[in-house]
């Protein structure tokens, strides 16, 4: 295969990943690395580097669309970014010392977990109770618009959420993904933040988290311009197109199909790791 053919095929695959990721809300990054390593036989370190760059592009590109809803909470996001960026640095340094086989196995497990969480309906926001005093001190409590006017919400269990976010950052730096599933787990389940606030805030955080590890990847020579170019442009175009279509389609069935694809890729990654493909 010559570079022109390779660029076109990878660009099309990345477009599809970004498109389905935006349409289902599961993010395109999670299928990119399996696509590049299993189908295009790219070394997993190059694949993770290219994926990280595309995660920054989609997160920043989608920010304006999310913002129209006015749900995101800049204080929650900024405070938790302390945890995700430090985690991302750790993940990026681990990526250099951990074997590619281990990276493949961890990646497969994360894919299976993402497929599992996405097959469940998003949990209803819990009844509001007493907030964590720490959250009040940090000015995290806020309001979001609902049909019955602005609704107050309070933030709970800040230390638990902070720890989970450190883990999300480490996974992001190690695997080159947005770790949206873990971020939403931290904010929804641990901190009791309403679903609409947590998803938009998470999108804001993903770009900053990925930037923290992308610098390390770049200086270590893991970001190949010839590969990152079609991946970044393809995913960005795909996710913008997906966000545009999203408003007019029912995505429930598509979500189930995409979750099955993710689960299959997860199994394939683990199998590939044990048979020494990476």
């Amino acid at each position, binding site marked *: *295969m010559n570079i022109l053919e390779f660029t076109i095929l990878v660009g099309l695959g990345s477009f599809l990943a970004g498109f389905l990721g935006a349409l289902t809300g599961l993010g395109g990054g999670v299928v990119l690395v399996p696509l590049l390593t299993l189908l295009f036989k790219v070394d997993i370190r190059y694949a993770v580097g290219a994926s990280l*760059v595309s995660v920054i592009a989609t997160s920043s*590109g989608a920010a304006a669309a999310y*913002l129209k809803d006015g749900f995101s909470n800049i204080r929650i996001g*900024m405070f938790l970014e302390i945890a995700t960026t430090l985690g991302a640095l750790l993940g990026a340094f681990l990526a250099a010392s951990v074997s590619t086989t281990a990276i493949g196995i961890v990646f497969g497990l994360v894919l299976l977990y993402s497929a599992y969480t996405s097959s469940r309906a998003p949990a209803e926001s819990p009844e509001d109770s007493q907030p964590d005093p720490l959250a009040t001190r940090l000015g995290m409590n806020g309001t979001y618009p609902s049909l019955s006017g602005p609704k107050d919400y309070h933030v709970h269990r800040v230390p638990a959420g902070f720890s989970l976010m450190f883990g999300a950052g480490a996974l992001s730096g190690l695997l080159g993904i947005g770790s949206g599933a873990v971020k939403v787990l931290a904010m929804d389940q641990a901190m009791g933040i309403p679903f609409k606030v947590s998803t938009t805030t998470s999108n804001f955080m993903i770009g900053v988290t990925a930037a923290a590890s992308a610098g390390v990847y770049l200086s270590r020579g893991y970001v190949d311009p010839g590969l990152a*170019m079609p991946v970044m442009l393809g995913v960005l175009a795909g996710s913008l197109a997906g966000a545009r279509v999203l408003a007019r389609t029912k995505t429930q069935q598509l979500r189930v199909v995409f979750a099955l694809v993710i689960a299959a890729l997860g199994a394939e990654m683990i199998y590939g790791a044990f048979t020494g493909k990476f």
Partner: protein
Amino acid sequence: MFRKADWTDQKVEVIIANLLRIGVTFAATVVLAGGLVFLVRHGLSHANYHAFVGEPTDLRSWMGILHSALNLRGRGIIQLGLLLLIATPVARVAFAAFAFAVERDWLYVGISSFVLLVLLYSLLGSAV
């Protein structure tokens, strides 16, 4: 313009979202331009990303990338676009720190500055 009353969190977020969109559009344009140069010159060479060799030093550091891009090398221009892309969220955090300072919210000026330091540590690691 820098009066406190004009700077609500909502307004700051709108400015940040536009900043991000402009940054990404600009970076993607540079990457696309570099990609065209790269494909015109090397499109018919054999593609090999299976074996990991790592990038040469002039595609790893700020100065190397800048030098390569100024010489209109395709891969250097792409890499410059990717650097701009990575710098976009960094600019976002820097702007948030500034906005919190206008709001006189010193706790969050501190928090944003810390995040900014972590990002700069990562990015400037590739300075030399």
